[in-house]
């Protein structure tokens, strides 16, 4: 039995410390996803903690049929969709610049843990990505995040969100179109975009 399985078993029996250790393993991914989805630090924290509370409440229903993270991601997506429903009721007119300004990402002391954002150039790339994501609908944003941040396939996204495969494809294509416009990758040489990103480019 792996450490994770042991932690899950302990958490299921009511050990909140074991659950906190489980949360520690995945909290960065969940928080990052939440932050890119709602684009505000406070909302991202609330949303990610809501995911953990829901997961803790529903932990008895986890049957090891999938990995813990897959199960957790399902809860995350449901939380995001609920968040969108509640959020759509109130106006959401804050500019992206404000949200970028309030990002928890800081240059001081964080360089070791934030390799991509360690340079000003990369910060600009991240800001452009955030701006492009702000231009698409929440669903398109979520689909893009699930695809290119979480690495899910179109079929998995379609099944998780309950939408058609065509919708997923169109959403990703629309977001990529926005990203191309914001990142200006069409005419820029690769090394101008990000030295960190060049490693994955051909």
């Amino acid at each position, binding site marked *: 039995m792996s450490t994770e399985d042991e932690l899950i078993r302990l958490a299921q029996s009511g050990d*909140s410390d074991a*659950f*906190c250790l489980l*949360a*520690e393993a995945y*909290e*960065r991914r969940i*928080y*990052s996803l939440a*932050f*890119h989805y709602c684009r505000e630090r406070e909302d991202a*924290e609330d949303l990610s*903690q809501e995911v*953990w*509370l829901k997961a*803790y*409440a529903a932990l008895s229903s986890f049957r090891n049929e999938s990995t813990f993270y897959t199960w957790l991601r399902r809860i995350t997506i449901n939380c995001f969709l609920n968040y969108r*429903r509640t959020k759509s009721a109130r106006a959401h007119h804050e500019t992206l610049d404000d949200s970028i300004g309030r*990002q*928890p*990402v*800081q240059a*001081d*002391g*964080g360089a070791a*843990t*934030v*390799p*991509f*954002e360690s340079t000003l150039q*990369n910060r600009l*790339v*991240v800001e452009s*990505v955030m701006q*492009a994501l702000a231009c698409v609908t929440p669903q398109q944003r979520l689909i893009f*995040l699930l*695809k*290119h*941040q979480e690495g899910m*396939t*179109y079929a998995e996204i379609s099944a998780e969100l*309950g939408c058609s495969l065509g919708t997923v*494809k169109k959403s*990703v*294509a629309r977001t*990529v179109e926005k*990203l*191309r416009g914001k*990142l200006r*990758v*069409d005419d820029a040489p*690769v090394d101008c*975009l*990000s030295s*960190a*990103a060049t490693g*994955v*480019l*051909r």
Partner: protein
Amino acid sequence: MHNCKSIRNDFVELAGDETPTTRAKQLLAEVNSCAACREEYAAVRRAVHVSGQALRSTLPTETFWPAYHERLKSRLASSQTQNIQTPVAVRTSLGSRLLQTLRSFASTSVRVPVPAALALLLLIGAAFFVLRPGPQTTVAVVTNPLPVPEIRTVEVPVIKEKVITRVVYVEKKLRSGAAPEGFVVGSPANALALRNASDHAPLSLVDFKPADEVKLTVIKSGFKDEKR
């Protein structure tokens, strides 16, 4: 036959590794054969990979997490105390639980296809018309019947009037009596002279007062061209 437009629709999927291997090989071979498509595909790949890398790498600094943990622990603790208190509360108030269930039922959104929703609406509408109560038959008890109105035919004499219309032509300027002396009514020369005179002396309505009565003199057989 290479078609740039059709092949470019597949670039996002190809860049996202969503294309099956054999198809991906075909597409890449086709992309390499066309310079424009090669450029386009490279741009899509760059956008996808740079943004993916940026998204995955954006994380708060390590100083952020201890406080985050503390907040999560406190929220978990508070949720645990709520969970302990909740069963007692649920057992004591079944009505509130029912109310909560109804509220959640009312607030839950159910996805219904548009044709099904329309059919349902039509069914409800038809059921409403079919099941609604028919027109109520009222039985009026006549205790004191009204007297039946008596119909009589009354002959009323109709006075028929015969209207005779006769057209009489009268010159306007002569009717007003403003003709200068020596003018003979109906003479074409005098009419011309009168027109010239009026051209020299411009007409003015300053002292004009409309008469209460208009005296009209009709001269029968006064002119040669009078119509009878």
